[in-house]
């Protein structure tokens, strides 16, 4: 029986375990500050993303917002690289005045994957509220949606913001919100799901919403339920405010939406200041895709999971939403079990005992599927902090990279103070292709099933690229990239991928190789490393110990080894 009773006290080690799982790690200094606070209230505040005044970090939030808004990206892109022939193609170049990530609002036309990935990676690294970013990453793996098909980064990032802000709500509300999300509508073809008249509905979303998002494959539903739910959700689409149509200035025929609004296409008129999802102005043409009972022969009543629903009535909900939400009531235990397993695999242990999943699913149901209450209970529990649940998971590559960057990179204030270039990671040239090669192409999963976690993160290719990324993270690696200058030639720019100062890693100058090792382990927080491996590294690096510039480079080498070794993949 998993012990969900709350812990009554905690240590800095406990704090670091919690912060690795429910965030992207904290430094030993930060852990010591938090360990002095009562665990229950501190964990609650952490989950809420509110920065407690007693944690003395209120200033970080303001600075984070300011930097994110206009000086976060260390690389930029030209207006349009004609040599590539693709609107929005990236011209990476170091620029004197770093700027915001060019992916949303008036920049939505750029529709660039690397820029979107960079924006999110920067948020994960520097957002003083770690948990909303971690939560969004968890939900992004579950509600995995891909830019490649959505082909609209602003809409993708709107979905991530939905996960960030609504990821702690009741699961029924979250499921409904995701089902109405424009990026999801494009991803799983809700926009072409037409069951009007006697039409054959597109069952893509109806299948995956049960198989991947709420129940698990073949867990309490059958093919008839899929087609019935597809009928209920037919016509679920969106419109685009005219003001949100963002045209590529170099190619007026090419445009993207900076935002969009959920709408059920049920034959209603759309205002002239809105566009249908395909871009057609809403001036007269009526799309009719969701049955409303006024057209001969169409079905307005469905049988779904053993219950009958009238899919034309709203009752405060969208037409058909009653059927969608019924998944949680008709198949409550299936749904709770499915969710509990996903939560445990991501946050606690990939090899949880079967009874643990049952216990957590009971917590979920006891809380009426309220995610806030459930996750807070879990994170505060003796179960979560049990020794057997530490360093038992293989960390996902994005989390692994971001956490190391937080430990080794400059602080937000220090990075922002650098000139002419900011001291932030050059995420734009890091995320792509290396996130992909490490096995997690953020914002662009290969399929709606997201990524398998824990040991499935690892194969020879992903291990190779972890060493590749570790070199960038630890060894002050620079990278030269070339961009088209518009005048027929290419210009090279050299960037340090992860700017860092070894002196920042060591508040107290080490006096031995073991000192260096212990400090780096405290920062990078790998799983247990065999003593013989540790001793071999130290002996090879420091036959005799000095702490000058060449030896500080040896500290970089040691950090590299800690990150690359088997224990360095665990968290």
């Amino acid at each position, binding site marked *: 029986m998993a012990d969900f009773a709350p812990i009554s006290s905690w240590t800095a080690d406990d704090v670091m375990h919690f912060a690795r799982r429910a965030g992207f790690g904290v430094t030993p200094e930060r852990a010591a500050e938090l360990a002095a606070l009562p665990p229950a209230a501190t964990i609650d505040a952490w989950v809420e993303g509110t920065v407690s005044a007693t944690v003395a970090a209120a200033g970080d939030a303001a600075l984070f917002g300011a930097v994110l808004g206009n000086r976060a990206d260390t690389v930029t892109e030209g207006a349009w690289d004609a040599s590539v022939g693709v609107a929005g193609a990236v011209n990476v170049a170091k620029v004197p005045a770093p700027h915001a990530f060019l992916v949303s609002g008036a920049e939505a036309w750029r529709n660039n994957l690397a820029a979107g990935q960079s924006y999110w990676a920067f948020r994960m690294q520097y957002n003083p509220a770690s948990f909303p970013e971690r939560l969004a990453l968890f939900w992004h793996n579950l509600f995995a949606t891909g830019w490649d098909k959505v082909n609209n980064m602003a809409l993708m990032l709107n979905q991530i913001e939905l996960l960030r802000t609504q990821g702690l709500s009741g699961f029924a509300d979250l499921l409904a919100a995701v089902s109405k999300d424009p990026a999801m509508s494009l991803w799983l073809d809700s926009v072409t799901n037409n069951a009007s008249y006697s039409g054959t509905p597109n069952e893509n979303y109806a299948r995956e919403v049960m198989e991947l998002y709420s129940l698990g494959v073949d867990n309490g539903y059958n093919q008839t339920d899929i087609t019935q739910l597809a009928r209920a959700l037919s016509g679920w689409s969106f419109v685009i405010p005219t003001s949100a149509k963002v045209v590529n200035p170099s190619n007026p025929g090419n445009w993207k939406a900076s935002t969009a609004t959920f709408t059920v296409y049920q034959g209603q008129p759309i205002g002239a200041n809105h566009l249908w999802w395909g871009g057609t102005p809403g001036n007269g043409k009526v799309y009719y895709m969701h049955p409303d009972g006024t057209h001969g022969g169409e079905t307005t009543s469905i049988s779904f999971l053993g219950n009958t629903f009238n899919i034309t009535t709203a009752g405060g909900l969208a037409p058909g939403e009653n059927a969608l939400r019924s998944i949680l009531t008709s198949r409550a235990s299936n749904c709770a079990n499915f969710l509990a397993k996903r939560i445990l695999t991501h946050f606690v242990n990939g090899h949880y005992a079967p009874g643990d999943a049952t216990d957590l699913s009971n917590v979920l149901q006891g809380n009426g599927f309220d995610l806030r209450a459930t996750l807070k209970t879990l994170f505060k529990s003796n179960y979560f902090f049990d020794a057997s649940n530490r360093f*038992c998971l293989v960390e996902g590559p994005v989390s692994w990279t971001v956490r190391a960057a937080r430990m080794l990179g400059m602080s937000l204030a220090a990075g922002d103070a650098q000139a002419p270039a900011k001291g932030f990671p050059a995420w734009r040239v890091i995320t792509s292709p290396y996130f992909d090669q490490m096995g997690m192409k953020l914002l662009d999963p290969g399929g709606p099933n997201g990524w398998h976690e824990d040991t499935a993160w690892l194969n020879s290719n992903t291990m190779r690229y972890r060493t590749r990324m570790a070199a960038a993270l630890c060894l002050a690696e620079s990278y030269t990239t070339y961009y088209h200058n518009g005048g027929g030639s290419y210009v090279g720019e050299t960037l340090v991928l992860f700017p860092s100062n070894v002196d920042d890693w060591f508040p107290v100058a080490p006096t031995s190789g073991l000192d260096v090792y212990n400090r780096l382990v405290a920062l990078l927080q790998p799983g247990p490393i065999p003593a013989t491996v540790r001793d071999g590294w130290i002996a090879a690096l420091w036959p005799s110990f000095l702490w000058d510039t060449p030896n500080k480079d040896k500290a970089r080498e040691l950090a590299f080894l800690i990150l690359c070794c088997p224990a360095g993949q665990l968290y």
Partner: protein
Amino acid sequence: MTTRREFLQASAAAGTALVGLTACSGGGSKGGGSTTEPPTPVPSAPILVVVNIDGGYDWLSVMPPTSSANRAPYEALRPTLKIDAAATTDLGSGVGLNADLLGLGELSSLGRVAWIPGIGMSNFSLSHFTAQDLWSQGANIPGGNGWLGRFADVAFAPSGDVLRGITVTSDLPLMLRGATRGFVSISNSSGFVFPSYLRGNKVVSTGAHPLYDTALLENGWGTSLTTPAPTGSSQSGYQAAQAMGKAFYDAQNDPAFGTNNQLPARTPSVLYPGDSTYPTTRVDGGRLSGSLGNQLKLIAQMIASGLPGQVYYARLGGWDTHSNQANDIPNLQRVLGGSLRAFYDDLKSITTASGNAQDRVMILAYSEFGRRCKENDGGTDHGTAGLAFALGKGVKGGMYGAYPNLADLDANGNMKYNAAADFRSLYATVLDRWLGQATTTTNTLLGASYPRFGFL
């Protein structure tokens, strides 16, 4: 050596050599196929290249009924997405091959392709992921490892043969995971060898910063890959990291990588889809995707380098055409067919220690399922039976299995299972007759004995 031009002329002369071939016949009889080339003997060092057509491909568009009794139900099921007979190469028996599969019609006419329409399993799943797992496992064996992984378990040296099974995808698919052995993933030829990327101009080496000690780094990392986990550490995660790290470490230290530990650069002898001058474009005039072509180029480079790969794995995604199928399917087919044809032609230019590469390679293509026979509003949903095919000089071309009866579908509107086209028969055929396993070994690997197809 036959040039590409000569080859194309020969192909054109072959014309519609397969007219008259019945849909259910084995490959042995080639009615009227005077220009059909007989299969070459199984080579002494055969290579298998598996191509996963990922997402469930609509093979009713790839190989549509053109004039048989199936044509009427096909047209009723596909009022807007049906393929005209004029857009196909006739395969006989009222079936055509979509001309968008660039160059495969020619190879089929030469007798180089064995088609297995209707292939599937009795326990079909309409879930991509369950279906893919079932195809990967090839048996309901507890442990859930893959049929080629199990092959590696019995055929590869217990420690060694690290480059005998290679996937050029960045992941390690279940199909390639055995109980004790797995394939190595090499998705990129450049800088594969640790820590080559630490050299050159990639790492700061100016001023007071000397180059990093790459030998120390490699040795230090290597030690961590072989030292047992400390007591109390998570065994599963630690061991997985060790095993996968060591797979990379051993592969890149294999002597097959040569003196400078890098695959020699290679310029393909033909154009592949994705190349800027590849003659066929997307329907909209844009460049075809190089996603599969680049993987096959890498495999060709590995074969040309003398890597001891016996089984390779590649993947082409994007086939989950629930919508927009009329636009997407032609492009996907051009990439699939064009890439396979380019690879086949390219292999002709590669001489290996065990003979010409084209003589050594057989391509095996499969998808986790076919799609729903009845279209929705612009696309098709998940279906059941599929179309697998084997391509190569050692293949006895023709039709195997049986084209499903589109007038006799299951309750969900999907094709019914045909025991004569069980997917495990395909695996059994390949294991026995291409990969050289004893019959009893094959049957053990698959959990039972399945009838073999006659294409090998």
